[in-house]
């Protein structure tokens, strides 16, 4: 999944580099503040563990094997920010010393595995754990989702750059990683089980003794985002009911919008096809989520 130099277009890697760089800067500040900064050696040795864990192979059937990503494993123990730093460290070393992943693609690789893989994985874990109270279920789903989403995003980046069309790469990448993800989930459960058997309270930001049953919005956001990303491009491209009626009755033209939509027809201007729909979906979900969140916040304040 490590994308090398030369295959991503600047339009893809430049913004992703900016996103990853700011995420790293933020995480560094956060970790340095929370953690006793002199404990950096400990963080470093555990980052070396992440590197070694990524070389762990496991059989997935048919004579092939997958290898561990470890994003959720390390994020559930050390927290999402430390995990992002560790995975970035590993990716930088892999790019510099092992020629695994490119320099211009480093931002994209950190985005796929650190921000989406570990970050989204952690949010999924935390959300599912507080909703269902089932630790193993939360760990498994989060691990599986982190592997599949990271693969899906990598496929999307390559297809925006014109390497492989999304219709080919997305099913192929997510298909293989859906199987690898099962192994990742099972191994992560077993590893965390062993670790939590030795030391209590291993899970970062989660109290394992007292389970809170309070649904948090992040999990819903994550689900909506993945629907927007992966399912929206395959939605019907035929006009919906209202548009169809409007068309046949001939008043569609009269419905000229008062305000020019920033995302006409669920497409982002300048991008094309499935990606555009995906991105428009993501933007839509984020905006809706933000609005709903703000409204609820305001209502709550008024109730008090």
């Amino acid at each position, binding site marked *: 999944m490590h994308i*090398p130099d030369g295959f991503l277009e600047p339009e893809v890697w430049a913004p992703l580099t900016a996103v990853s760089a700011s995420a790293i800067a933020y995480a*560094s500040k956060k970790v340095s503040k929370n953690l006793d900064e002199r404990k950096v050696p400990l963080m470093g040795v555990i980052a*070396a563990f992440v590197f070694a864990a990524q*070389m762990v192979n496991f059989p997935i059937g048919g004579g092939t094997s997958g290898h561990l990503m470890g994003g959720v494993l390390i994020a559930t123990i050390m927290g999402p920010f430390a995990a992002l730093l560790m995975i970035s460290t590993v990716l930088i*070393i892999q790019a510099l010393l092992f020629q695994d992943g490119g320099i211009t693609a480093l931002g994209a690789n950190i985005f796929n595995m650190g921000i989406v893989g570990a970050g989204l994985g952690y949010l999924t874990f935390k959300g599912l754990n507080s909703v269902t109270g089932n630790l193993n279920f939360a760990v498994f789903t989060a691990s599986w989702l982190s592997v599949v989403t990271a693969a899906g995003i990598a496929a999307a980046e390559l297809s925006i750059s*014109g390497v492989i069309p999304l219709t080919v790469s997305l099913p192929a990448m997510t298909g293989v990683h859906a199987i690898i993800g099962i192994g990742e989930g099972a191994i992560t459960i077993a590893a965390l*089980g062993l670790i939590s058997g030795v030391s209590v309270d291993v899970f970062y930001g989660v109290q394992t003794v007292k389970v809170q049953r309070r649904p948090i919005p992040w999990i819903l956001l994550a689900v909506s985002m993945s629907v927007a990303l992966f399912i929206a491009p395959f939605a019907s491209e035929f006009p919906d009911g209202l548009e169809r009626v409007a068309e046949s009755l001939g008043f569609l033209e009269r419905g000229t919008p008062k305000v020019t939509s920033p995302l006409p027809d669920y497409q982002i201007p300048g991008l094309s096809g499935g990606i555009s729909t995906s991105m428009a979906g993501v933007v839509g979900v984020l905006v809706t989520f933000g609005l709903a969140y703000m409204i609820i916040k305001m209502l709550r304040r008024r109730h008090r």
Partner: protein
Amino acid sequence: MFDPTYIDSYSNIDAPYQRLDARGKIIVTLAFVVIMAVSVNDRPLRVIPFSLHVIFLAAISRLSPKVLLRRMLPALPFFLFASLALGFSKGSHAAVAAFLKAFFSVLSVIILVSTTRFSNLLKGLEGLNLPTILVSMIFFVYRYLFIIADEYGHIKIARESRNFSGSKRWQWKAIGHSVGTLFLHSYERGDRVYSAMVARGYEGNIRTLGIQAITRADIIFVAISVIYLLSAGLISWKLL
């Protein structure tokens, strides 16, 4: 892959490029990779001026082509595969261009890493405002990666000597426990390393004896390289 001596084995050759400051070399390598990535697009011919720059660096670092190509070997299969895919979707020109871009980017990184002591490289990254905590972590991964990987090797041998087989589900569980054990060992090791370092006067930042200074040669090297790369990008953009 796991010969730890290979990383620094050519950084002590007494050659002009090895004597330059790490910061300048990092800037030039970044400029090379980024300008080439932006300007080449789908035209393979535009790679020519950039390849000349890499060949020049290889020459002033006195690294033999054999050494460079051997380090590059593990990356090549993926380049070939990805360019092949690109060839089907965007045509042969784009495929060749992408392959050459990938090839020379990796080559420039290999030259940078082979000619710079790893500790100097990290000092250089820190000097270029990478977060200190990240640089320290890279330092520790570099130091302990081989030890931790070796430790997993031991766990694996122990596992296999206990007749590791059976259903896939059981294997996943056993591998998971191995990974958990490896984490605990790493955690304990990290604690011990930290205590040992504190006992030796560690206060939160890593000190090295080698102090690098930017000389006139560094400034000239960076200036000429960046000007060359920029004009190479612009001229090939117009002509080729």
